[in-house]
């Protein structure tokens, strides 16, 4: 309904995807970089080109990027939205322009199909593990992040899990800005206020690793620190035998990207999808099973 939308109907039986648009929340996070790599690799196999755009965690920017993609008349759009609902209108515009839209990692209102990580489950798993490790009782710290859909779901999941452990209480919850540095600073302060906590949950690996550093520097030992993502950084940390960073809920952005492209290709060729919504399972990675974990590509 805007400008003169480029509604050249593309795709159809047997059609091959040639141009792919991929939009991610924040390329400065290795997680999304890996996702991009996954899509790139899959795209090369089918000989398509990918235009990757960084949302810089700004919904406004993602809106502009979609309009530019519409302009480019790309075939399919794989979108990892900063906000599931806020992206809705833009997704509609893309569909009107004849672009097939698949949501990756985070749901996107109006997307025709989605591959999402169960972020709630990830948070749930991580905190269950944490709870068990500290013996089902004691105080813990929760390091939250910038309020975007995926982060919120993890926190929700974590709190759900903790409902089964009445003797565990979250004594402090602060925002670590999804990053190592800020997490380090506030974790230092949180540990000062609550030196006797048993564990820490960080909404992603950078956050959890920042907390780990904080504990080390504060000379506090014996904590159980868990994160989410199982990023290379996290794997490296897990390999240190004495690190307090003990586990992380594995997400596989790489495969996610590949699956998303697969679904988009199907849609483009007018085929039916077995399921509109694929939920990538997540598993806890610990020192024990680290060997089996293949990690991100």
């Amino acid at each position, binding site marked *: 309904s805007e400008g003169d939308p480029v509604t050249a109907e593309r795709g159809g039986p047997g059609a091959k995807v040639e141009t792919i648009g991929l939009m991610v929340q924040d*390329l400065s996070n290795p997680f999304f970089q890996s996702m991009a790599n996954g899509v790139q690799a899959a795209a090369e196999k089918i000989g398509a080109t990918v235009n990757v755009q960084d949302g810089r965690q700004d919904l*406004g920017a993602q809106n502009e990027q979609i309009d*530019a993609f519409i302009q480019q008349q790309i075939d399919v759009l794989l979108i990892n939205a900063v906000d599931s609902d806020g992206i809705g209108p833009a997704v509609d515009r893309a569909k009107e322009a004849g672009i097939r839209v698949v949501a990756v990692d985070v749901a996107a209102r109006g997307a025709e199909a989605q591959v999402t990580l169960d972020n709630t489950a990830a948070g749930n798993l991580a905190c269950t593990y944490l709870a068990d490790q500290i013996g089902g009782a004691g105080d813990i710290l929760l390091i939250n992040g910038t309020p975007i859909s995926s982060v919120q779901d993890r926190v929700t999941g974590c709190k759900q899990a903790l409902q089964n452990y009445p003797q565990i209480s979250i004594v402090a919850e602060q925002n670590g800005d999804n990053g190592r540095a800020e997490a380090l600073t506030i974790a230092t302060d949180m540990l000062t206020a609550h030196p006797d906590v048993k564990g820490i949950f960080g909404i992603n690996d950078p956050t959890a690793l920042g907390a780990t550093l904080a504990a080390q520097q504060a000379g506090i030992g014996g904590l159980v620190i868990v994160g989410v993502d199982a990023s290379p950084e996290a794997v490296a940390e897990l390999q240190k035998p004495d690190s307090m960073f003990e586990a992380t809920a594995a997400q596989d952005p790489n495969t996610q990207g590949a699956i998303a492209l697969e679904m988009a290709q199907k849609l483009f060729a007018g085929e039916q999808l077995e399921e509109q919504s694929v939920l990538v399972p997540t598993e806890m990675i610990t020192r024990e099973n680290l060997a089996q974990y293949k990690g991100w590509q």
Partner: protein
Amino acid sequence: MTRTAPAGTPATEPAERTRPSFGQVWDRYGILVVLLAMVALMAVIAPNFLSLSNGFNVARAVSINAVLAAGMTLVILTGGIDLSVGSVIGVSGVSSVLLWNAGAPAVVAVLGGIAVGAAAGLLNGFLVAYLALPAFIVTLGALTYLRGTAYALTDGQPLIAEGDLGFRLLGNGNIAAIPSPVVVMVITYVAVWFILERTTFGRHIYAVGGNVEAARLAGIKVRRVLLQVYLLAGLTAGLAGVMFAARVESGQPRAGEGYELDAIAAVVLGGTSLFGGRGRIHGTFVGALIIGVLSNGLVLMNVPFFTQLIIKGAVIIVAVGLDSLKNWRS
């Protein structure tokens, strides 16, 4: 050896030539030339850049920053600055959606959102004008507490609009085949242009920015002028916030983060002096377009995001560099 001239000839003022020199022309249109050069370049290297629909894309994408920059121009003309406009976008957008969800009619929701922005601006203005606090710090503080307020209003969660948002037209859709945000932007600029060029208030803005002591001694109510200017900046930011909410059909507490810098960049690129007293609103418009064209073109060219940042930074500097060639004449 005494040359005598007819009585009363005034001291000839060397610079009194009225025929515009190249320099003066460049002063006026330099930045415009920069824009056109950029458009030409993009047209050649960026696929599908030069098309009506993409023109509208750019205009639509620019509209929010342009509206911000319009209000910012007024503040900067008085020699001040407003760093809080980005956060105002967050608060006002959220407020308008809150109102809508509370069952208020669209008009009320829109006006409510704008009013919130205006209120924030009024407080900035009061602190700057009547308590004589430095604008930079006052609005930096506002940037911080307003963002906090936006989060607090929604408990940190984005706010989903119930039903379809009554004022979505402000962000999406067309008015007479022209994207509606673009229409809003144009109206804003006409209004600001009128204020600056056709009203006493406009003259007073230039006077206060040009020489505040002289303005006071000339009987201008300096404080009131300052108050009104920050009020207007908050108001336009409030409008931008509502436009943002309408565009994404939801209340995003994080909306507008960092937008203040883009707005200021647009103003300065447009040739307005950060020391106040000197500048034109159409320059700001051109400045906003430069930034918009650049972002759009770089995406179309599929430039990696960090390369985009490098290019953007460089272009901003080069643009003012070219523009400031005028200073080289003196």
